């Protein structure tokens, strides 16, 4: 039995060593990666100056064309991430402040994402490599139930979120395989769909006060960033467009742009514009809220 207990102890030590070594390896690779996602780009950049940054979900990622702003003398970047929720947008903004970004104006998508105070597991994963290195990330996740395991058990964070930051992603980062996330200053255009638009049903949504949005407002106020919260287009077939009126009852400051583009030819899906639609929409927003510098 003594021999077996010794064997087990050695086995456990070996497991611990494996976990530590893998954690060091994965973290080292992610620390050097800056071209796979907007989050690693953000983490590995410093002292950037932007006139305008865009934050939100796919309805920012696919809708705002920074080039249209940049052509008018502004310096902008689209930091919208598909599947991101307001919680992750708040963390991204905090990271920008941590990385000493100078931002004059933040355009934040606040429409369907206001319905949930929950987080996006897929996007939360992408912050995990920085848990030890970034105080902002650490503080942000201090209250989540699995925080201690994620922070103190070596490699646990990469196992827990293996779908997004596991071996596959680490390998692609190690060989510097680029994605299109950073092309077009962060704007990712969608194609026109051949199929008819399937109407979105907003009758199940109830706008309510949102923790992430409140946090973003506080960060902007503290760091003197002008915050423009706005809605983005939905196709005209959308069921219960009255939703947007209720939204404004909860947060009166939200600018209404859900009708900025209405023609079906500008949509890829009911909730997402295609490339032409995105350009139209960006122009409408620019014209309504900004003046050309050039």
């Amino acid at each position, binding site marked *: *039995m003594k*021999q*077996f207990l010794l*064997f*087990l102890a*050695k*086995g456990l030590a*070996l*497991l611990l060593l*494996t*976990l530590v070594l*893998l954690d060091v390896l994965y973290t080292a690779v992610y620390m050097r990666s800056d071209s796979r996602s907007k989050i690693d780009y953000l983490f590995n950049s410093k002292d950037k100056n932007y006139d305008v940054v865009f934050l939100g979900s796919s309805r920012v990622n696919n809708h705002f064309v920074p080039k249209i702003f940049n052509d008018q003398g502004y310096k902008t970047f689209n930091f919208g991430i598909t599947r991101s929720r307001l919680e992750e947008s708040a963390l991204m903004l905090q990271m920008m402040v941590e990385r000493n970004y100078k931002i004059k104006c933040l355009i934040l998508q606040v429409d369907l994402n206001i319905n949930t105070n929950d987080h996006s*597991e897929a996007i939360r994963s992408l912050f995990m490599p920085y848990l030890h290195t970034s105080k902002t990330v650490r503080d942000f996740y201090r209250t989540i139930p699995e925080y201690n395991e994620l922070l103190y058990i070596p*490699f646990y964070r*990469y*196992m*827990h*979120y*293996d*779908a997004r930051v*596991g*071996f*596959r992603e680490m390998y692609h980062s190690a060989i510097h395989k680029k994605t299109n996330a950073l092309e077009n200053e962060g704007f990712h255009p969608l194609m026109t769909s051949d199929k008819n638009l399937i109407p979105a049903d907003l009758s199940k949504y109830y706008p309510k006060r949102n923790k992430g949005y409140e946090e973003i407002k506080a960060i902007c106020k503290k760091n003197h960033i002008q915050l423009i919260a706005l809605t983005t287009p939905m196709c005209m077939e959308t069921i219960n467009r009255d939703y947007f009126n209720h939204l404004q009852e909860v947060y009166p400051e939200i600018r209404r742009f859900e009708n900025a583009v209405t023609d079906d030819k500008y949509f890829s899906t009911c909730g997402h514009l295609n490339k032409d639609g995105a350009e139209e929409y960006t122009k409408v927003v620019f014209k309504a809220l900004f003046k050309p510098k050039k």
Partner: protein
Amino acid sequence: MFFNSLHFAIFLPIVFILYWFVGNKSKINQNYILILASYYFYSCWDWRFLFLLVFSTLLDYVSAIKIEKSETTSERKMWLWLCITINLGFLGIFKYYNFFASSFAEVVHSFGFTASPILLKLILPVGISFYTFHGLSYIIDIYYKRIKSEKNFVDYSLFVSYFPLLVAGPIERATHLLPQIKVRRKFNFHKAQEGIYQIVWGLVKKVVIADSCAIYANEIFNHYTTMNSLSLILGAIYFAFQIYGDFSGYSDIALGTSKLFGIDLLRNFNYPYFSRDIAEFWRKWHISLSSWFRDYLYIPLGGSKGNKLFQVRNTFIIFLVSGFWHGANLTYVAWGFLNALYFLPLLLLNRNRKNVDDFTLGFNLDSFRTLFNILTTFAITCIAWIFFRSKTITDAVLYIKRMFENHNFSSEYFRIERYSNELLALVLIFVVIEWNNRHKIEPISGKLSWLKLSLCLAAIVALGVFSDYKEFIYFQF
């Protein structure tokens, strides 16, 4: 409580410590600890079904004694059939009632009548197919006077409910397991070490191979109508490795866990994908179930005695029943039927026992033929797996049709942000490891065992799928 859960990782060391440090003095204490642990393990799934398990155990225990004590053949038969009827009755109600009721309604409907069958909202008790067959083998052995009935209820209960095999086998035999339960187990370092190696290798098969393959196989099978030929072929291959990794991985963990308590369980898999024909495949796949059907169904039906027609009938019966054992769905029956068809030429040509010897490969014509046979057997097995995995027979047929008619063999990029062929390297590495270790139970023991153990641990934590957790497939059966 899954074998690959944190709960089990805490449960197992506690039972191990109690077993070897508290209950080590006598066989009675050891058995009490194991039976309590087994009942706790089972109640973690659903405590209500514990009553069913205890009832089934009690029924088999009493019936066996009654059969043995019966003085007339009719009395013996009466107890045998009473026990079989009740056991299969439970299985029938929980597993097959809704299937038969809705099938009956469909048949009635096809004659122009309407029928509204009363469907039951029942949860299938986990492991019911396994422990029912477990108990039945014991009763039948008693009836045929192959063994003596077990008088000690705790020992018998442990034979039925022993937690490593309780929910998904292997389906044990009283002649193999009971004698081990009847004596005090002494700790054996080499056996326990082998157990640890087998558990680790089982985990590699489950979380690295099976769960990775599941991600791709699910995507392909769920969207087969839009997939090209290459993806559909890969889908069948990935599912073949998913089910193999899942079930043989489970069996390895079960066997390994049992070795930690000094008890050997029956081997369930013997590298089936290296089989040279379908008969050999069935001697190496889910061995405890195949041999159960052979001993308790095929042989009582007459087995290979009688003329060819008689043998063909018996072969089809066991394959169809085996398919139906897996679940109340015609896809499983079709899978069984297809395997019977594969078996048919071997049976008719008396070649079903041709490939029982060991073999090696070299650079010669015989080796080339052997390799060709292995690949052909694997290919037809994959075709059968398509029926096993599909929701309906129509889906399976359309899947195969599209696989042969699409003619597009380019790599596809899935909605899950993965290329169809990117898992092939992992599968190939796994095949090479299995091939090189096919004469051993697991590949870790032997030379450089610490290095191999480290690599397996690294593979589990680095390549394992943890965020998209999948239950063991055979738990549903």
